[in-house]
Structures are given as structure tokens and as C-alpha cells.
């Protein structure tokens, strides 16, 4: 019985990995006509995943998490991959975005403001815009002192400032209660989805209470990823994108070509921060719960590991990295620990593979750096640089 259960779960896992594999093949293999790529990709994302999701809502959850992390990995990709600035406190921006909506989309704001709180759920869309501004400002505040440093000094300073944001969120519950401290804020409002429900009913999709919000957020996250990729591609080919790559390759040379260093770096920092902030708002609304625990150093390193696994500077790489690590973290490790628990019940619960995500991340980081520092889907310029060195 336990064994068949294990088989069924690993069957799910294998199916997921297969889907991701097809998507990767579609983006990386040469000599596939563009329309085949687009059509197959859309079919998988818009048909197969939702159909699987109706059978097993966990697939939606996984899809949403992958989407949120992929968008953040794309944001960090601008900072680390394009501009070459190692940011170890990236989760701080995610936190600022999440708290921006969580404070005003719950009763929390009553503690320090007059007005009707929680704000109705429609305001979430407005706050996605506001979060872009607040996180970009946070990026400016953190970046102004930090970006005068280079390399490892910058890494240490961003690590410290990232922790500062988390500790602020942890302690700003007195004297005035802004963040509700370690307990976190709940419930956070979600946007109303009556229009979405009737639209789906017109399309002939029946939704019930458990799947409607899952499908809604899944599609919202997909839309956001589309937007983020669009912005990312355009940025990479713009004047700024070329300036970032120039700074990454050689700061002194870039400066002597007339690129103003600090403003250009700040722009990269703020762009990356803004991506993360928008996803923070969606994260807060989707989970209806925000607490400082989600924004630890481990979260920052996880996003960094995604960027590195996929390949620094590579857009499909960042998405692949996010998908691979999220599936590993939420599904493969859990399946494996269920297998261990049922097959070897004498092993103490402390030794549960699902609790050893750090070990897995650490191994991924070290092995990637030793054997394939350019990542799984390397960016062209980066690969040549790594090979040359």
C-alpha cells in the first residue's frame, strides 16, 4: 500500500519533470519553427497544467510558486547576471513588496492611520504599481551606500542590509504596530474574482471554491512572467542593458567609455528590486499571510541559486532554475522523504530529507561552480568569458 502510494507520487513528480523538460527543449533546441515553440508552449502552460491542476490542486500551488520565484530570479538576473553585482539581500525587496500590500490590505493599517482598512481587494492591482515605487526606493536607499563598493564588499553589505529589513519587519510591532512582528499579518485581502469566474463559465470551465483562486493566481503569475520577460528582453537589448554588461565585464573600461557607474548600477538595482516587489504583492495576496520568516537569508540564497543554476545573465536559464529548484524543494524532496518514512520507519524524524534543503542547495551551488559555472542554459557572452578564463 505504502509502496503504491510512493509510486503514484513519484509518477506525479516524473510527469512534472517531463513537462518542464519539454518546455526547456522548446526554448533551447535549435531548428524548431517559432510557431511550433509558441503553440506548444502555450498549450502546455494554458491547457495541460490547468487540467492537471483540476485533478490535483497541488500542481497549481507548484505552478504559482514557480512563477513567483521565476519572476524574482529574472529580477535578480538583472542585478547579478547582467550588471555583475552580487546581491545577497535580495529577499529584502520581496519583503518590502509583500508588506506594502499586507499592511494596507489587512486591518494592520488601522494601528497608525485613519481610514477604512482593510482596503478592498481591487486595490491589489494599484498596490502592484505602488510596490514598484516603494521597492525601487528601497533599492535606491540600499544601493546608494552599498553600490560604491565592489565584489565581495558589496556582497557583505547587501547581506547585512537584507537582514536589516527582515529584522525591522520582525521588530516594528512596537511602539507603533506596523508589521505585527514575528506573528505576521493575516488575513490579507485577495482581489475579487467574480468577473474571472463568469468569464471562465462562458469558456465552459467549471470552478469550485478550492480551485478558482488557484487558477486565477496561476494565470496572473503567468501574465506577470510574460511581462517580466518582455521587459527583461527589451532591457537586455537597450542602452542600459549594454551598459550593465559593460560594467560587468570591466568597470574601468566601461567608465572610460563614458558610462556613469553609480547611476547605471543603481538603475540595475532598482529594476531588480521592482520585479521582486510586484511579486511580493502577489505572494502576500495569494497566501493571505505574510511573516518575516519568508524573507531570511535562505530565501535570498535560494533565488541566487536559481539564477546560478540556470546561468547568470540568461533569461530562459533563470526560469529553468526557478522551476527546477522549486520542484526539487516542494515536490521531489517531499516525495523522497515520504518514501524514506514509509520504507525505513526506524529512522528518526530529524533525518527527514525534506528538512535538508540547505544541503541540496549547497551541493548545487558548489558543484555548479566547480563543473559548470556558466549555468545550464548559458548566455552567449558569459559562456565565452568563462571558457576564456
Amino acid at each position, binding site marked *: 500500500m505504502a509502496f503504491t502510494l510512493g509510486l503514484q507520487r513519484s509518477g506525479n513528480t516524473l510527469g512534472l519533470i517531463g513537462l518542464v523538460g519539454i518546455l526547456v527543449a522548446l526554448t533551447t533546441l535549435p531548428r524548431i519553427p517559432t510557431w511550433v515553440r509558441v503553440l506548444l508552449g502555450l498549450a502546455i502552460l494554458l491547457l495541460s497544467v490547468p487540467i492537471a491542476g483540476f485533478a490535483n490542486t497541488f500542481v497549481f500551488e507548484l505552478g504559482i510558486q514557480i512563477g513567483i520565484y521565476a519572476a524574482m530570479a529574472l529580477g535578480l538576473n538583472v542585478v547579478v547576471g547582467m550588471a555583475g553585482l*552580487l546581491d545577497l539581500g535580495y529577499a529584502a525587496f520581496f519583503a518590502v513588496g509583500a508588506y506594502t500590500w499586507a499592511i494596507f490590505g489587512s486591518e494592520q493599517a488601522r494601528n497608525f492611520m485613519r481610514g477604512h482598512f482593510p482596503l478592498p481587494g481591487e486595490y491589489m492591482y494599484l498596490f502592484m504599481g505602488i510596490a514598484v515605487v516603494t521597492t525601487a526606493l528601497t533599492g535606491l536607499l540600499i544601493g546608494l551606500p552599498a553600490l560604491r563598493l565592489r565584489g565581495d564588499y558589496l556582497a557583505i553589505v547587501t547581506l547585512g542590509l537584507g537582514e536589516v529589513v527582515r529584522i525591522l519587519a520582525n521588530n516594528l510591532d512596537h511602539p507603533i504596530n506596523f508589521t505585527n512582528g514575528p506573528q505576521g499579518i493575516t488575513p490579507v485581502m485577495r482581489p475579487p474574482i467574480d468577473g474571472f469566474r463568469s468569464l471562465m463559465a462562458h469558456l465552459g470551465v467549471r470552478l469550485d471554491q478550492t480551485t478558482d483562486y488557484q487558477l486565477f493566481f496561476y494565470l496572473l503569475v503567468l501574465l506577470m512572467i510574460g511581462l517580466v520577460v518582455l521587459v527583461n528582453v527589451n532591457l537586455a537589448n537597450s542602452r542600459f542593458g549594454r551598459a550593465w554588461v559593460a560594467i560587468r565585464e570591466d568597470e574601468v573600461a566601461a567608465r572610460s567609455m563614458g558610462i556613469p557607474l553609480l547611476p547605471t548600477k543603481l538603475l540595475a538595482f532598482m529594476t531588480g528590486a521592482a520585479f521582486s516587489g510586484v511579486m511580493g504583492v502577489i505572494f502576500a495576496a495569494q497566501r493571505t499571510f505574510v511573516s518575516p520568516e519568508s524573507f531570511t537569508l535562505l530565501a535570498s540564497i535560494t533565488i541566487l541559486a536559481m539564477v546560478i543554476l540556470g546561468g547568470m545573465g540568461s533569461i530562459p536559464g533563470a526560469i529553468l532554475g526557478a522551476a527546477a529548484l522549486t520542484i526539487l524543494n516542494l515536490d521531489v524532496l517531499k516525495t523522497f522523504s515520504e518514501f524514506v518514512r514509509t520504507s525505513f520507519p526506524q529512522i528518526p524524524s530529524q533525518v527527514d530529507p525534506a528538512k535538508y534543503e540547505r544541503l541540496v*542547495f*549547497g551541493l548545487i551551488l558548489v558543484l555548479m561552480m566547480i563543473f559548470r559555472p556558466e549555468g545550464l542554459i548559458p548566455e552567449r557572452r558569459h559562456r565565452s*568569458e568563462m571558457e576564456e*578564463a
Partner: protein
Amino acid sequence: MLEQILSILPQVIFDGLVLGFVYAMVALGYTMVYGVLELINFAHSEIFMIGAVVGVEVFRYLAPQVPSGFLLLLIALLLGGALAGGTAILVERFAYRPLRKRGTTNRLVPLITAIGVSFILQDLVRLIEGLWHNEFFLRMRTVEDLEGSFELFGGAIFVQTKSLILIAVSMVMLVGLTYLVNRTKLGVAIRAVAQDLSTASLMGIDPDRIISRTFLIGGSLGGVAGVLFALQYTTVNATWASCPASRPSPPPSWAGSATSPGPCWGAWCSASWKTSSAPTCPS
């Protein structure tokens, strides 16, 4: 208010001094590695943690057998230093040396490797402790001989005997390190590699060996500091070290990267700040 602050000030300064000795030893490990490789060795906090865990285990198993608390502490210090130093060598051999051999110029690559190693070591220790004792929070066993206390200056400062042991041991280690770096052949070689690796290798120094020795020295210092930390503050777990030990990581950067007394001053400043701010602001 002011009177209250003044009355606890001597105690705070003393506690800061004690913690500062631990930080100074940890910070020296960071600085030595930074000196020879220009790499912030994020895994050093885990080396420190391994020392502390070894200390706890030695006290757990040998406390009934060994009659004297001081002998027990000596065994713990030796074993802690040796195992931590050994781990540091292994880390260098299997994680950092392959990168160096490939000659990567990108500064991010070794830094990210160091973060990865730090995570691996944390979870390995957690796994071992989980399999061995099914425990996560480890408590140092108290030994009669080492537990004692007295008051100085009419009760202004409360001193534990083990704090004095901590100060004495770290003084010996720091003086020993100064002698080693300034007066011995190995010390000259380490300084030469820190100044210019390729020129040093032209002068007949094998840089790989010297770097390995540097990791051994820094790692053992960290391990000894870990044992002393466990003795003084009694609770240890696998993931905690990355917080206290990432605090000494700024001081080496403030104080420059040479093997000098600089990091010690940095460590004392940050430790005094920590103990003095602890009563007022929770972290």
C-alpha cells in the same frame, strides 16, 4: 536612567571583552584566508560551529571518565581544534582548489562556492547530530571544576571562572599566532603568498601547501574558539553559527586584510556593541 546605565556599564564592558576574545579568534581565521586568497570564507562560521559541536560531544562522552575538568577541557580544545582544522583543509581541497586550478578570474565564483559550502556543512552537522542523538539543540554538559564565580569591585562585575579560562586560552592562541606569523618560516611563507602568490611560487614556495596550512591554522583557531564559546554560552546548534560568526566577518574588512591585530580591535568593538545593545533591543 543614566545611573542605571552607569551601574551596568562595567558588567557590559566585561562581557563584551569576553565575547570579543571569541570573535577575535574567529575573525583571525577569516582574515588569514582573506589574506592569502582574497576570498570571504563564508564556510568559516561553520568551522567555528564544528568546534563548538565537538566540544559538546567531548563533554558529553568523556565527562564521567575524566576526573579533572581542566584535563577534559584540554582534550576538547585539542580535538575541537584538530577536527575543525581538518574540515577547513578538506573544504579548501575539494571546493576552493578546483576553482583556483581552473584559474577563474570572476570574483563571484569562489564567493558563491563559499556560501554553498557553508550550507552543506550546516546540514551535514545537523544530519550527523540527528542520526546520532536525534537532537537539534545541543547543550554543553556542566562540569563542577569549571563552574565557579566571584565578584569584583564590590559587586560591580560578576566574573565566571570559565570566562577567565576563555580569556587565558585565547590570549595564548593569539600570542602563539603572532609568533607563528612573524617569526617562523611558515609565517614568512604565508605572508609571502598573501602579498603575491605567483612571485612567492617563484621563490620556491608551494602555494597550495601554504594555502592548505593557512586553512588549517585559521580552522583550528576557529575550532578552539568554538569549544570556548560552547563552554561559556552552553547552547549550540548547527545553524546558529552563521549569525554570531557572520558578525565578525565585517571586522576583517574594516581592519584591512593583513594578519595584524586589526581584526581583534574590530571584534572587540562589535562584541561590546552587541552585549551593550542586547539589553535594550531584541535582535
